[in-house]
């Protein structure tokens, strides 16, 4: 059953925070091996959707299944099989980078030697080279993002959630991360990533999900979206047309 189940399934999922509806009756199905780009304005519900998928938040209505498992009922099993790179700075800031990776690897029950080997590889590949003994709290924002990506990958997840993975990352590492993601996808790993960088999403993601005010406005490949929403030049044009266009960028006092 698990072999054919979708990687991610939202069934009429809603999430309310008091009066605010952050996610509104969203249903979607992400096949295994997809690379999904989640787009939307600030506060559209992208991070809430990822938090629902990773079990951080509980849906107000509907259900979320990950790799064929109900997230609420099988939280630990789901967390063993997914990797998450959150948007915010939520690393264990009083550890060094290696200590943190050792901790995450340990929680995933990886052998010590494997953790050491993979940690070294992560540090080298992501060009993460802080002075020895530097605590995470003293890392730059970009270094923290790289470490968070490394921690999400260290146990070899089947499904990877990345919240704004390219934010604050230098151009050289961005190319490396793009290559890692493509390689992961070719090996059958499903990736769901939110981003504001439309060019990267267009180039990288086979499936696009556009969310606004908690509602899923569009979901499918670029060709599917063209068929449904008219022939647009690039993803930015489609996105802007769905959002109702951009406002004139002028401030009266400047």
């Amino acid at each position, binding site marked *: 059953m698990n072999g054919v189940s979708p990687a991610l399934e939202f069934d009429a999922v809603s999430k309310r925070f008091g009066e605010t509806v952050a996610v509104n009756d969203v249903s979607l199905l992400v096949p295994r091996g997809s690379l999904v780009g989640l787009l939307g304005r600030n506060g559209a519900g992208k991070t809430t959707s990822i938090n629902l998928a990773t079990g951080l938040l*509980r849906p107000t209505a509907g259900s979320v299944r990950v790799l064929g498992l109900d997230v609420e009922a099988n939280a630990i099993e789901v967390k063993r099989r997914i990797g998450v790179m959150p948007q915010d700075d*939520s690393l264990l800031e009083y550890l060094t980078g290696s*200590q943190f990776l*050792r901790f995450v690897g340990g*929680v995933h029950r990886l052998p010590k030697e494997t953790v050491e080997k993979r940690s070294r590889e992560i540090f080298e590949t992501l060009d993460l080279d802080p002075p020895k003994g530097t*605590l995470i709290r*003293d890392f730059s924002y970009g270094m923290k993002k790289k470490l968070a990506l490394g921690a999400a990958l260290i146990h070899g997840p089947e499904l990877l959630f990345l919240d704004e993975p390219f934010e604050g990352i230098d151009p050289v590492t961005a190319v490396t991360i793009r290559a890692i993601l493509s390689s992961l996808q070719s090996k059958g790993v499903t990736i769901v990533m939110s981003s504001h960088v439309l060019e990267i999403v267009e180039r990288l993601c086979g499936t696009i999900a556009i969310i606004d005010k908690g509602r899923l406005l569009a979901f499918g490949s670029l060709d599917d979206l063209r068929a449904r929403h008219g022939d647009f030049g690039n993803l930015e044009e489609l996105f802007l047309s769905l959002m109702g266009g951009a406002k004139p960028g002028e401030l009266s006092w400047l």
Partner: protein
Amino acid sequence: MALSVPAALVSAQYRASWNRILRTAGVGGEVATWITLGLVVVVLFFPGLVLTRIGLDLGAELATSGDTGVLDSWNGLIAVFTLGFAILGGFRSRPSFPSSRFGRYPLRSVDLLIAELPAGLFEVFPLLATGGLAAMNLGLAVRMPRQAPIIALLALLSIATMLGTMFIASAFYALVARSRLVLAGLIAASAIAAFAGGLRGVQTAVKEWLPALVDDLPIARGYEGLVLLRAGDVLTGAKWIAVATLSTALLLAIAATLQRMRLAAELEPDTPSRRLTASIPIDGGSRSMSTLFLIQLLSSRAVLALILIPLLYSVPIAVTASMGRAALAEGTILPPPILMFVGVAEKAPLFAIFPLIAIALNAQIWMNQFGWDRKSFRTFLLLPLEPREILTGRLRGLLLFTSIQTLLAVSPLLAVRMPGLREIVAAVAAGGVALIVTTGVGHVLSILHPRAVDDDASAHIPLHLSWISPITLLGTVAELAGVWFMAESVWKGTGVVALVLSLAAAISGYRLLLPRFSALLLRERERLLSM
């Protein structure tokens, strides 16, 4: 019209505080907050009435007689509010506008202090002191209506003196918390004072030095000036009121300077503890959860100071007892207070008291177990960790922290005597029971009322939860004492056995309740994530 900088700061502070209360008030949200505020008003109403009555009575006597005893009583009360409450308030006070958040704006230190004065009012002790001072001066103004403007000025000066003293006290505590050298000096000074002065010294200080200090307080001179003005001695009266005003301005200037130094010092990095942290092995096993919690705690200077504070109790006892014993051996006749110290140090259950002191001091940790590493908490929830692993990690972390604290605290007492096996077992059992009970209560409280702890700051226990810590501790100590005395009264010498059985019961109770704590943590995880 442009908003002044202090007004903008204070307005933002009040709005943020109110929004935070509404956000974190927990069950019942806004309603609970209003009920709590209503209860505070009811609780404060009667003391307020009493103080207004005191103001009326003393005001009537001051208005009709020139009795200096009445003025002394008045000034004594004013000193309690302006100094006593300020010193207590200093423990809880911390900068409302820290450099980490406000340093990027073009703010002058004078703007920061002006904004800090009203912002600093909204804590329990300054609020009580302000209410008391206002009520007393109101009563006085009713009795002396012609002097009402001067009384209003003196009331404002009293409140400013209280706030200035509170900021100075707070900066001093922060300095002590940051500098282990200052703390060590304080411990040594208290040890010397305990031996040199003893209780007789304290009595002398209370009976002679304190009244003299109260009489010479500038604000007391201000009220003396008021009485002189009323009696017709305008020149001397005006002089004393001017002295009070200028002294208050000077006090505020000192407070502003210390506040600026404190804000600057808080931006300095904490290098030594980082080097220590980097060498600790973390492997992701179940023990890692307690190690991580301990690392997080020890990364805070406020918590580091907590480790050393029990020494303020044990060092004076140890020094006084050992020097007293040596003096007795030489045949010196010692005063009764020193003999009492020697007696206390010689007997059980001295060692058993220190784990309880440590747990009482750690209330802000066990009552807010997730606020210290709130950023990491999201990571814990994203990893395949069972909630019980997170909770038992807190218990083990608190056990490690309290053990370090207690061992450090009792080490000076070893110079006086070695504890017997029964005393050690009693200390471990009593401390264990208290630790498990407080941690269990703390689990629930920390899940339902999480409060984020900012970098290097202590997490103040909010007013509406502050009763929980003393009630829990008093209940636990009463239970331990009850069990001990019952067992001793049935069969002499079985008190220790009863304490050990209490510890076993506490461990079993915790294990039974752990699934419920875990379910609560899982159910309320969104509350913790929004901290």
